[in-house]
């Protein structure tokens, strides 16, 4: 399982990229080539950096101590439980504030950026919690 994770990661990225491009093609039929190239190269570079960093860390490791254990999983579960409440209540609060300010519609682009930022925060938080 440990050796297969880069392949699983690569397949996941390729599948998500394909679904993403298919959906974007449906919404924006004449998508610029530059955007597609940037998307593909960014994804490939991201996977490359992730796999490279993991391999580098594994090669430098001189002992057989695991990276995660029971305490780490408990910490991660607690983090997700808290972040679920914070993101739900935060989003509701944000909607209420925007509604109070007179905003009646939200652009899909703005919503996708908000969700992207939320996911990025979750990933960074998970990495921080994992190391504690």
């Amino acid at each position, binding site marked *: 399982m440990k050796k297969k994770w880069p392949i699983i990661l690569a397949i996941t990225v390729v599948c998500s990229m394909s679904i993403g491009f298919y959906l974007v093609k449906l919404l924006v039929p004449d998508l610029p080539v530059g955007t597609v190239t940037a998307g593909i190269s960014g994804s490939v570079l991201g996977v490359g950096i992730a796999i490279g960093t993991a391999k580098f860390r594994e090669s430098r490791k001189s002992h057989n101590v695991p990276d995660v*254990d*029971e*305490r780490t999983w408990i910490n991660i579960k607690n983090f997700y439980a808290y972040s679920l409440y914070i993101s739900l209540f935060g989003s509701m609060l944000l909607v209420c504030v925007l509604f109070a300010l007179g905003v009646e519609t939200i652009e899909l682009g703005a919503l996708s950026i908000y969700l992207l930022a939320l996911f990025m925060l979750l990933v960074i938080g998970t990495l921080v919690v994992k190391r504690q």
Partner: protein
Amino acid sequence: MLLKVRNRIKEIRLTKGISQIQMAEDLQITRQTINAVENHKYNPSLELALKLMKYFNVTIDEIFTLEEE
């Protein structure tokens, strides 16, 4: 009445001359977990508690005690 689990893991480990890294390798847990358990910030699961008993070859009451806060 609030009860707190106290342990003597650090004491037993130092008596046996085992380092945290060695213990982490043998029990397949992280060094941070050992630190948290030794500083009474985390109570190990029953599975880990049993592993600790077997590892140090001691009984449960030699490692863990229940104290009133």
